[in-house]
């Protein structure tokens, strides 16, 4: 669409800008201020310069949490993206079944995040949980509070349960926007199922998939409530991710300076990843527009 150049549009933006600035810019400035000081209260504080940044960047606990975070994010993406595409391909296209399947699949997304943790806690406990008791009946001593591998597998399973629907719904809506004519042409050419997927469905999906991967990556990077309720970050610190380390430091220990420095590092990582994805999305839309015009 050809947009008109008109700077009066700023007036339409203004109310939104003031509100978001109130919730985003003022707190961000405060975090920056905290990060260069040792704050006891508003009147008792010392300027520390870059000391907190140096300690945080070299803190082995946080480095471990960061690595764990990346491992977690890539694992769930590797599972959720193919699974989501597969489910989207299986979902019925019309009729009451389509609505019913859609609502059932959306269900996990609508549950408060700590309740998701509670559900899985109830589901996986060795004494009262269906899955916990079931696996023990099979002869494996499943225990998420003792065995880090079990805890990891359970958290990944929980995240797959919780968020695969998002990818599936995105892909489903991408698939629905393919005109029937494409499939008809493919049938005439006697294209194989794989060819239909590779040359008709997948190109249409890339657009929504980039959005999906962006959302999933970012949300997995701020995962907090689910592992907190399910495992409490344990056993040991084997399932402690970035948000939880940060929250423990900021609220639990009241270390304002270090946790602010850590927040800023965290935020810069997010900013970089976000920018890469955003540029990718925008360039893709530009390419699409150019092709559409030709």
């Amino acid at each position, binding site marked *: 669409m050809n947009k008109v150049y008109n700077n009066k*549009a700023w007036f339409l933006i203004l*109310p939104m800008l003031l509100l*978001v600035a109130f919730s985003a810019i003022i707190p961000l400035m405060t975090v920056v201020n905290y990060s260069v000081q040792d704050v006891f209260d508003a009147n008792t504080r010392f300027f520390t310069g870059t000391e907190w940044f140096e300690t945080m960047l070299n803190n082995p606990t946080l480095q471990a949490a960061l690595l764990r975070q990346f491992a977690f994010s890539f694992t769930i993406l590797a599972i959720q993206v193919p699974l989501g595409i597969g489910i989207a391909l299986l979902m019925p296209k019309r009729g009451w079944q389509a609505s019913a399947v859609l609502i*059932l699949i959306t269900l996990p997304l609508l549950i*408060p995040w700590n309740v998701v943790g509670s559900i899985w806690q109830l589901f996986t406990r060795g004494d009262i949980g269906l899955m916990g008791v079931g696996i023990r009946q099979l002869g494996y001593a499943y225990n998420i509070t003792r065995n880090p591998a079990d805890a990891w597998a359970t958290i990944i399973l929980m995240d797959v*349960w919780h968020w695969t629907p998002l990818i599936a719904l995105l892909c489903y809506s991408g698939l629905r926007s393919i005109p029937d004519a494409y499939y008809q042409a493919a049938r005439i050419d006697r294209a194989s199922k794989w060819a239909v997927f590779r040359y008709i469905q997948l190109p249409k999906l890339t657009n929504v998939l980039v959005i999906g991967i962006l959302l999933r990556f970012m949300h997995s990077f701020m995962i907090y409530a689910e592992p907190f309720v399910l495992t409490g970050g344990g056993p040991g610190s084997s399932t402690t991710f970035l948000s939880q380390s940060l929250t423990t430091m900021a609220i639990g220990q009241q270390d304002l300076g270090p946790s602010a420095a850590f927040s800023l590092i965290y935020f810069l990582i997010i900013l970089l990843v976000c920018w890469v994805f955003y540029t990718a999305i925008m360039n893709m839309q530009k390419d699409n527009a150019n092709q559409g015009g030709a």
Partner: protein
Amino acid sequence: MTRSVPTTPETVRQQAAESAAKRRKRARSAPIRWRRRTLLGLYLVFVMLPIYWLLNLSFQTNSEILGSFSFWPQNFTLGNYVGIFTDANWYMGYVNSLAYVLMNMLISISVALPAAYAFSRFRFIGDKHLFFWLLTNLMAPPAVFLLPYFQLYYSVGLFDTHIAVALAHCLFNIPLAIWILEGFMSSVPKEVDETAYIDGYSFPRFFVTIFIPMIRSGIGVTLFFLFMFSWVELLLSRTLTATNAQPIASIMTRTSTASGIDWGTLAAAGVLTILPGIVVVYFVRNHIAKGFALGRT
């Protein structure tokens, strides 16, 4: 109309495709369709099983939960639910949560509508960077903003009020609303706006009487997403409240006491947090897929 002689290449193709499809439908026998259904069914079982287990436990007493393992309630009881609905501490949690969620929906949608219109129709200085900045707010981990929020709302005297949580959730909900609405608005042709202006509509009148009705499915989906993300968020709502505006999510932590965890009440409270979501998703079921793609398919 049966088998008229095809005249244009398109009709030839179409007829060929139709007959091929019919032949194939007969040929592509039941096994394939059943395989698809079985796979989808297996996934649905995977989705429903944990929820079923929650439901199952919510209808049992604690002694039954801990004493015997059963696939369905042996002594069906509503005691856990009765306990929640008769204790003001518990049911006020739902009222508080709903209160700030509704406030947030109202604030977010009313400032997001004009902003999304501006992004979808005009170019202006800094538009792309502004849009990106909004996106970063959507992606920012709430943990980063936790401390200053606490200080900010404490210093302006809004701590432990519903409006504080509603405003805090604006951080990610307004960008989300703008992103989705912009997608829906861009699919409305610009000729609509131009015709209205030629017909002498002023901008506010055009926006309210013509434009908003045209994108009402988009607005519905947006409201659904605002509801969802405000409803499921825990960290900010827990930090910004103490007693008066405490959300249900943080009241649920009360089930673990010194004498162990009250599993039955925890399960029942969990079931009750799922219900509002089911109600709202029913209204937008036909548009939800497009909403998840942020209006961009």
